[in-house]
């Protein structure tokens, strides 16, 4: 029997909500790491741990109906925009109850009903898609804002820079969010991004600022301004969020000794963990209560995902064509 995911709603209005959302992302990722180790999640993931304040802070500035595009490191964005953790986890486990019916996996998770236009396996590819959606929404007279998340590595993809230009000349309601976590896989951003991130956006006349990506409230404040601008028809903005991934680039990094960053560096950033910082601002005991609730939610999500069936192989080509065209099989016997 295929289970049904419970209704899910993730408020982000209050600091406690945002702490809860960050805890959800953190807990989701920790559980996902376990499931990768257990072999339940095939292929591994790009863990978002450490960057939670960015996804949550930005999504807190958005409203229902706003759209986002995400990246290979997309779990945080997808969850913060409100996707069901049950269905997200089922997706990672390749089950029919997954957001994408098990067809997408970690790098392609999407929930169009929530404005999540999808993670993307190609660095930089989400930004022009976001700009296109923004163009369509604006030209249709709607005041939708579209957020494109991407990493520091994406700053060196030509298509991203082309998109800056188009968004600028057409004053598109796009919020460009660069999560500068210091590295593109093993490559330090410091030596790879000549001139700096905000300078790059400003060159196209796009207002740009750097914020502390380990501080959810700071991210929210900056994003809110940018969103307001976009919503008012004043065009795109760019936010560089300085952040860090506590884990490796991808789970497969665990069996490689890449040595591109020092233990001290990691430890230093862990001290700036956005969660304790956000917890400290809450009423005493509230964080613990929230943590417990998230623990239960994620345990349920796990049960749900594992109880969900894998897709039937007769449907391996389902959805390939929207009009139902059935491709020729790989062999005729």
């Amino acid at each position: 029997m295929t289970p049904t995911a419970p209704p899910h709603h993730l408020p982000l209005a209050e600091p406690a909500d945002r702490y809860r959302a960050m805890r959800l992302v953190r807990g989701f990722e920790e559980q996902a790491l376990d499931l990768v180790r257990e072999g339940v999640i095939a292929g591994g993931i790009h863990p978002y741990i450490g960057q939670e304040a960015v996804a949550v802070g930005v999504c807190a500035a958005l409203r229902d109906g706003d759209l986002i595009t995400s990246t290979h490191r997309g779990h945080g964005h997808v969850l913060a925009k409100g996707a069901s953790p049950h269905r997200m986890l089922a997706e990672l486990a390749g089950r029919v109850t997954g957001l994408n019916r098990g067809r997408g996996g970690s790098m392609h998770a999407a929930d169009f009903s929530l404005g999540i236009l999808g993670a993307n396996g190609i660095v930089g590819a989400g930004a022009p898609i976001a700009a296109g959606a923004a163009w369509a929404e604006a030209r249709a007279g709607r005041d939708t804002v579209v957020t494109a998340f991407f990493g520091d590595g994406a700053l060196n993809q030509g298509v991203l820079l082309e998109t800056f230009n188009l968004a600028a000349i057409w004053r598109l309601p796009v919020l460009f969010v660069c999560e500068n976590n210091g590295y593109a896989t093993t490559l330090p951003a410091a030596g790879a991004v000549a001139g700096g991130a905000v300078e790059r956006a400003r060159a196209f006349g796009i207002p740009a600022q750097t914020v502390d990506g380990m501080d959810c409230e700071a991210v929210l404040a900056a994003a809110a301004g940018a969103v307001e601008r976009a919503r008012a028809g004043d065009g795109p903005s760019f936010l560089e969020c300085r952040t860090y991934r506590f884990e490796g680039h991808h789970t497969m990094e665990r069996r490689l000794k890449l040595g591109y960053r020092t233990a001290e560096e990691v430890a230093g950033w862990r001290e700036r963990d956005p969660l304790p910082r956000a917890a400290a601002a809450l009423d005493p005991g509230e964080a613990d209560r929230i943590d417990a609730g998230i623990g239960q939610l994620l345990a349920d999500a796990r049960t749900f995902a594992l109880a969900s069936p894998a897709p039937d192989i007769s449907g391996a080509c389902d959805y390939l064509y929207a009009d139902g065209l059935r491709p020729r099989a790989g062999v005729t016997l």
Partner: protein
Amino acid sequence: MSKLSYTKALNRALGDALAADESVCVFGEDVGAGLAGPTLGLQARFGTDRVVDTPLSEQAFVSMAIGAALAGRRPVVELQIPSLLFLTFEQLANQAHKLSLMTGGQTSVPLTCLVPGSGSREGWAGQHSDHPYSLFAHVGIKTVVPATPSDAYGLLASAIRDDDPVIVFAPAAAMGVRQDVTWDLEPVPLGRARIARQGDDVTVVALGAPVHGALAVAEELAPEISVEVVDARTVHPFDWATLSRSLERTGRLVVIDDSNRACGFAAEVMATAAEEMRLTAPPRRVTRPDGAVLPFALELDRALQPDARQLTGAIRAVMK
């Protein structure tokens, strides 16, 4: 009775689609000026919010068209040169084509990509003369190559209405074709071939401009050989049923294909025919050479494109 030109047919298909459906829009370079022909006058008629002149950022604006499609539009992107398909191959093959399956059917990408002037444009040389429709068949994007003005109208109309990405090649060598059109232009379904000429001895499959050459050769050979000319029209999905029916009668196959030989359209038609259909003689193809790059000098450019003499030879060869 009016002589409809191929370019005008494309122009009319675009205009009709823009008029009929608010969600249709056009992106491309110099589309406002109508430089390539198909968009002439459309910006004046529909405005700059429907017919959008883009900077030279093909990757971004093709992706933007994908994003617009995800937000409910039916964008048509005009690309001025066939090799701009190379430049945007990631966007087309890896994003537009894959999103429907990868999202588990949550979305589709009704994007049309129109390439006026595909194939050799005499004197435009190596980087402007490709005919890469076979690449799109391989990755699985719906692809059409109309040979006639009415098919240009009808296939472009269907492409725009289709919920999947479709590439429409308008060969430079076909864009000069004019046709007496006495009927109302209407959509031509994707995936259906047209028997351009009936015959009993040999089936010649052609696509785009070579359809006209094939018809001329068939006429010339008529006294000796009865040639059936199948205008495939759609590269993918190919109309296997029509081919199979034709080969049931003829048992002999020649494919003429103005693209590179290896792994091209002609290879696919021959392979499938050999695998699944009735063939009483080895099939033949007339193509560009393997890995062809069209040299600039006209003599050389022409020497690498399939021609009537070669087609005649191939037809005679399969009749042996």
